């Protein structure tokens, strides 16, 4: 019943082609633009063909925006801090949700889901004032602190489902043998949940890498702390925009998350869709 006749096959492939063109066109155009000399790009109407493609922009971009390397480092640094902090907050909480019964358990889980629905934009004003009072504006912390808050809810849900997959019998057996809660956590839960922790950590890393823009433009004016999504706008100069170099830098800037995602997409997608599909 899953056989298609040639006509159907062509139709489906054509559909996929159109769909994929929509999804991938911006990336293809970014890559193509990054390979072309600036004076080829500045021809109107658009030229489909260039005869001297090169990776020159990928070298020149470091000179045009001298801080580019720093911005990429900042993005990495911010995302790593956010991921680690998120894990620290989320591991005990997710464990409690997976293993214990307590009043308001379901209600608080739903509240977590609801928090996911607020965008950072709604609470920027008090956060701005808070960070200003604490003297944390224009620092790494100003981007890390709100970043963690918005990743905690999903991370708890994700990790909870990983913990639930660990058979409770193992823990009970250890408990009967006189192991303490801490020992159980260290010797049974931790090793068995490592894959889950890695997936949730990477989810937090990617999420934080993606959400840097809003907090960065609002809470940080200092160049030395800027993450790459905001740093890229330096290619937009007073006279003209160095599109080819900007696109090259943009592609380099998105590469880390893309690579991480491609390697781990199966696990991340599985975890995220599990709730929607089975519940």
């Amino acid at each position, binding site marked *: *019943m899953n056989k298609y006749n040639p006509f159907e096959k062509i139709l*489906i*492939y054509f*559909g996929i082609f159109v*769909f*994929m063109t*929509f*999804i991938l066109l*911006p990336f293809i*155009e*970014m890559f193509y633009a990054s390979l072309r000399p600036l004076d080829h*790009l500045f021809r*109107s*109407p*658009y030229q489909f063909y260039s005869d001297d493609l090169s990776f020159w922009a990928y070298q020149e971009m470091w000179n045009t925006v001298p801080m580019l390397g720093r911005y990429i480092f900042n993005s990495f640094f911010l995302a790593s801090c956010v991921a680690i902090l998120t894990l*620290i907050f989320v591991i*005990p*909480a997710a464990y*409690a*949700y997976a293993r*214990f*019964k*307590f009043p308001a358990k379901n209600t608080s889980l*739903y509240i*977590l889901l609801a*928090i996911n*629905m*607020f*965008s950072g*934009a*709604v*609470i*920027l*004003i*008090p*956060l*701005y004032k808070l960070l200003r009072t604490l003297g944390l504006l224009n620092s790494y912390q100003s981007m890390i*602190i709100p970043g*963690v*808050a918005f990743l905690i809810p999903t991370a708890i849900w994700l990790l909870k489902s990983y913990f639930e997959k660990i058979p409770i019998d193992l823990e009970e057996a250890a408990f009967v043998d006189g192991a303490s809660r801490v020992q159980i956590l260290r010797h049974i839960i931790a090793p068995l949940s490592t894959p889950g922790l890695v997936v949730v950590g990477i989810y937090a890393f*990617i999420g934080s890498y*993606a*959400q*840097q*823009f*809003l907090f960065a433009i609002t809470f940080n004016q200092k160049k030395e702390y800027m993450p*790459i*999504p905001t740093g*890229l706008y330096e290619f937009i100069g007073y006279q003209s925009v160095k*599109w080819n170099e900007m*696109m090259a830098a*943009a592609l380099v800037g*998105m590469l880390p998350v*893309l690579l991480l*995602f491609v390697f781990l997409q199966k696990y991340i*997608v599985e975890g995220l*869709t599990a709730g*929607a*599909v089975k*519940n």
Partner: protein
Amino acid sequence: MNQKLKSYTAQTYIAYALIAPAAIYIILIVAWPLLETIRLSFTNSSLAGEDYVGFENYQKMFSSKKFNGIVTRTFVWMFFSVSLKLIIGLIGAVLLNANLKGRSIFRVLVMPPWVVPIAIGMLGWLWLYNGYFGIIAGVGMRTGILDGPFGFLAYKQSAFISTIIADVWVGTPMVTVFFLAAMQGVPRDLYEAAYCDGASRWDRFFKITLPQITPVIITMSLLSAIWTFNSFEIIWILTEGGPRGSTTTLIIDTYKQALGNYKFGRGAARAVVVMILLMLFAGFYLALLARINKKISHE
């Protein structure tokens, strides 16, 4: 009984202790700011200080024609964006669900717009929409549809449509992936039975697939409505709400009032409106989720 009760309360304390760090963090960084936003909306707070002004911010806001226009615009923008995401996502999922060679590669290739930081993806769209040198204007000029350069983000209507398309681009992959996961969860024997009864591919889609994935379709419509409503970076980067306010949605307006002009009070009043609307969406979503869960546990 007593023993049981005791261990139950002990469990509760341990559980609360484990949850406390995350809970306190969320209360400090999300819950308190939400309440503080409500308080600020009754003041004329700015960098200089604040005084209580009662409902003045709200009165000004609701009597301003501009604000009412912004609310309407937000919903129109959302309606088109969400509908397109769902339709394109459903078509995409059907296509990628077809049992053909290469589908596993395509399934990975749909995801980049979802994963890549929006602010970086939008640089690509800025280039595509460029009126002189962009490929869309270029194709338009070469085919004669456009008679000259056309800045898609420079005119009211085209900017409105262009921001919707970029938003659909960001949101579609996730919808596709969820629909695809739902389609694969449909029990195979349903299809086999229908096939034996001679149902066409078309029938099988409308009579089996679609009803089976309806819960996911409904959840995704609500979730994407919420995310679309919250969409900030896309419009901010492409148009900053312009030209002449034609792409200013509630979120953009809130941001501009609060952090563009540092009129915290006015911005807070707008944020409160956003909050109330989001709470309504969230309420719908959670009620729906509870109903679906109940239905499943009854089956």
